[in-house]
């Protein structure tokens, strides 16, 4: 009896200890996940939530099969098992809420989406380039924005492809059918979205950004702290280039690049647009400090990014080269001063010497890397910044403040 009672008491103790260890493990893992969630951008939503796919915003400046692109996206997402809001419900919602602008959503629309349709997020697609002239070219960007009180960019990615990106031996890799190229581009975007929604690691290699796409010169104030987290509003850019919608296209490129960095929370451009409209702010020659002050307060942003697009050129057919040239400035909320300034200029054949190796065929692909560099260098400090800044001894990196 004594033996049995001692065995049972030992068993009880072991049970209590293991239960305590188990509960501590659960507590620690909960704390770990909570900390990780707090330190990163908004995580992927729960499974089973539905997506509203907005009509494609055509920024290409040409006639393009935007309905086909949207249908293709919906088909691919449905095949992955995601719930998509049906067209009839979406049309009714858009009519009811007089939603005509499909390039972003503001707070009121995001709230209405949540309450009226019950969707968890909205997929916004912008077509940036579409050319059917052989070799075809296409560039598109998609972003997933949450619905509810505070619309947040959950995911953003895109693809810029040309039919002759990988011609291969004897031109066997050439893509001459525009629809085949479109399918490839949509597949790439849908794959990235699928990875995000299924909580799989992103496929893109961060180190793959080429050094030739760094800014030519830049200024960085020491007001910017390298390990801090910033909320950024992207103000409308000024377009001096001959390309229609070049400012909007480059804005999307910057949003995507900054979103990829863990240190920037980019405010949904639809929300920024709504505030600019509400304040009746027009920016014909760049944002003034008083307008910036109003935006800082209303959007609760730490930084405002503004830029001038001087060149954003694509070419049709086989001959020509893509050109991108822009000037960027970042205004800080606390100091009310410019804390970052850079000039970036690249052409598709930069650093190309033999057999077109390393050539970039679309302005999208080039701007994507150029904006990644700007985002990367904004918060690089000390030695890392010097390393990031050196480029054949031509770049400057002066870390001095205003005074």
């Amino acid at each position: 009896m004594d033996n049995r009672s001692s065995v049972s008491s030992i068993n009880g103790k072991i049970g209590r200890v293991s239960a305590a260890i188990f509960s501590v493990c659960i507590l620690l893992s909960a704390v770990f996940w909570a900390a990780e969630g707090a330190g990163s951008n908004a995580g992927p939503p729960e499974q089973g939530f539905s997506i509203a796919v907005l009509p494609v915003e055509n920024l290409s400046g040409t006639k393009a099969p935007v309905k086909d692109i949207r249908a293709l996206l919906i088909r691919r997402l449905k095949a992955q098992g995601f719930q998509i809001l049906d067209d009839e419900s979406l049309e009714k919602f858009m009519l009811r809420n007089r939603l005509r602008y499909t390039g972003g959503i503001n707070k009121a629309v995001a709230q209405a989406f949540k309450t009226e349709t019950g969707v968890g997020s909205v997929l916004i697609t912008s077509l940036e380039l579409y050319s059917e002239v052989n070799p075809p070219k296409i560039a598109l960007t998609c972003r997933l924005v949450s619905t509810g009180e505070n619309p947040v960019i959950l995911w953003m990615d895109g693809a810029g492809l040309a039919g002759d990106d990988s011609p291969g031996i004897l031109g066997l890799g050439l893509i001459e059918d525009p629809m085949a190229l479109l399918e490839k581009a949509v597949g790439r975007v849908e794959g990235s979205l699928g990875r995000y929604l299924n909580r799989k690691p992103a496929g893109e290699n961060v180190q793959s950004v080429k050094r030739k796409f760094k800014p030519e010169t830049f200024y960085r104030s020491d007001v910017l702290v390298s390990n801090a987290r910033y909320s950024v509003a992207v103000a409308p850019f000024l377009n001096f280039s001959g390309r229609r919608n070049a400012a909007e296209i480059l804005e999307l490129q910057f949003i995507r690049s900054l979103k990829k960095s863990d240190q920037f929370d980019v405010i949904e451009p639809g929300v920024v647009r709504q505030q600019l409209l509400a304040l009746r702010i027009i920016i014909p020659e760049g944002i003034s400090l008083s307008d910036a002050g109003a935006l800082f307060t209303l959007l609760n942003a730490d930084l405002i990014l503004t830029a001038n697009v001087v060149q954003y050129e694509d070419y049709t057919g086989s001959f020509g080269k893509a050109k991108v040239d822009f000037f960027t400035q970042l205004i800080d909320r606390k100091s009310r001063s410019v804390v970052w300034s850079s000039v970036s200029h690249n052409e598709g054949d930069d650093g190309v010497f033999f057999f077109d190796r390393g050539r970039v065929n679309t302005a999208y692909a080039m701007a994507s890397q150029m904006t990644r560099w700007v985002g990367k260098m904004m918060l690089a400090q000390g030695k890392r910044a010097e390393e990031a800044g050196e480029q054949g001894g031509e770049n400057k990196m002066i870390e001095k403040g205003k005074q």
Partner: protein
Amino acid sequence: MALFCLAFVFFTACAGTREVYRDPNMDFGAIRSVAVMPFLSLARDNIAAERVRDVFINDLLATGAVYVVPVGEVARGAARAEVVTPATPSPEEVIKLASIIKVQAVITGVLKEYGEVRSGTTSANIISVSLQMMEAQTGKIVWSASTTKGGINIWDRLFGGGGQPMDKITQDAVRDLINKLFK
């Protein structure tokens, strides 16, 4: 005597016209912030002036010596000061503008040439810019400089090649002007 003549020929051949004016009474160290006005373009390319201005603002900021007010703030100030032609403000307008946007100097510029020049069968890119700095308190010109970069040289004539890219010579010209400002 022959040696003297030879030396005279060599030294006078090196002499050039001065491309910089600096007010000897001006304390340039007191200038902490400046406004760069839109450049006047005499070139065929409409966006060239904006590009050169952007590069100049960026490089001037990168020196760390002076702060350059954002272009949007300059535009707001020019509108409030009722500057008729922002590229060529009068001294009175400069004083008024500087007091609104709180700068110690205003820089204006003229883009005289930008783009391709051709001579016979040879072509090359060229840029020619001149800048002026006006003091905020008096509206007086305290610094002026000009530069020309690119163009057709003997190697282009002999071997062709088309000269250097436009962005490269723009950068060279801007750096030359900034060197002249801080010399």
